[in-house]
């Protein structure tokens, strides 16, 4: 899977949405292809992936076949994509899968497993209380959970730094990652905005 493959998939989904073929919200990825490819060099098939409503790239890079992913998106499931066979769990609720990631990490550690739980979220989620307590618990107990924060400085249309009156996102551990990017799409939809 290359950056061009990812962009082509998302463009196809955008076209389908703008043609009113998807009657549910979508949150398109974009502008972070190189970061995602770099992250997924380290993700093993047996690892868990916990994410949000913006998970098309992550699902593709974790190994979900494009046609299977597209079918789920066309069926309206883009906002909370789950693929048990690939150990992917997503949620449409802010910070929703972070506590679940902590539990997965606890279970793996107690059983002496070697899997890693990858917890993906955005910059506003990284400012929430739930993020901070999950991150602190994982760090203090040495759980096999890695946080990846995709920072486009926005939550829907709200400027994250402005409303927090801050200059940056949460300080993370060395083995976590915050990357900045510019999303070429609106928060949701594909240009023909539908409020919901």
């Amino acid at each position: 899977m290359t950056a061009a493959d990812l962009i082509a998939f998302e463009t196809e989904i955008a076209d389908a949405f703008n043609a009113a073929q998807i009657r549910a919200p979508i949150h398109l990825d974009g502008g972070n292809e190189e970061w995602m490819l770099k992250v997924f060099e380290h993700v093993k098939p047996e690892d868990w992936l916990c994410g949000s409503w913006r998970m098309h790239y992550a699902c593709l890079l974790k190994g979900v076949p494009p046609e299977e992913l597209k079918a789920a998106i066309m069926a309206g499931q883009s906002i909370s994509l789950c693929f048990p066979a690939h150990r992917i769990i997503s949620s449409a609720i802010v910070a929703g899968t972070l506590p679940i990631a902590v539990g997965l990490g606890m279970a793996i550690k107690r059983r002496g497993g070697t899997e890693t739980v990858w917890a993906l979220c955005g910059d506003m989620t990284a400012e929430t209380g739930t993020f901070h307590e999950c991150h602190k618990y994982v760090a203090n107990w040495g759980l096999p959970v890695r946080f990846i924060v995709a920072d486009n400085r926005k939550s829907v249309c709200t400027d994250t730094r402005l409303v927090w009156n801050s200059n940056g996102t949460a300080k993370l551990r060395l083995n976590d990652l915050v990357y900045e990017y510019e999303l070429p799409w609106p928060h949701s939809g594909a240009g023909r905005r539908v409020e919901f």
Partner: protein
Amino acid sequence: MNCHGRTAEQGDVSNSSYGAELRRAMTWLGEKPDTIWLGQSCRDPGTAMYATLAEVPMDKRIELPVFENTQLGMSTGMALCGYVPISIYPRFNFLLEATSQLVSHLDKLPIFGNGYKPKVIIRTAIASRKPLDPQVQHYGSFTDPFRQMLKTVEVIELTGAHQVFDSYRKAYERDDGRSTLLVEHTARYA
């Protein structure tokens, strides 16, 4: 096996008290290889529920910080890895803090999860107002509102001793992909 040489499952409920039945249920659950307890006061004393865990092995108890919503999400995560967590909320008012994970995740994963069916057992209680009245923020009773909010999690209010063991056994043995919220009455623990 308890001190009378009987296993928890062989206990006789006919003359047993509510509190004794809770201890029998917890002891029986403690004998299962996949159970794990999470919450505040499951390893350290401090609430009435703690005494009901007397015969649960310590290595099956994870004492947690006070972060109710994260606790319920953790329980869901551990269930996805094959554990059957017993997640403890000593008062119903405390469970309110975990409503998001309960209503939007544990309850809805069987619907949107494409096959994920985590099984969690949630213990909560309606507080007694004797010998001390814990005041209005601590004796809430929300069984019916939770029944209205939950689509897959079964809510069982334990009003009598005769219900206790069988309800916990059902919660553990069920294979219908549902979790169970069990509401106890601490006034009946003694």
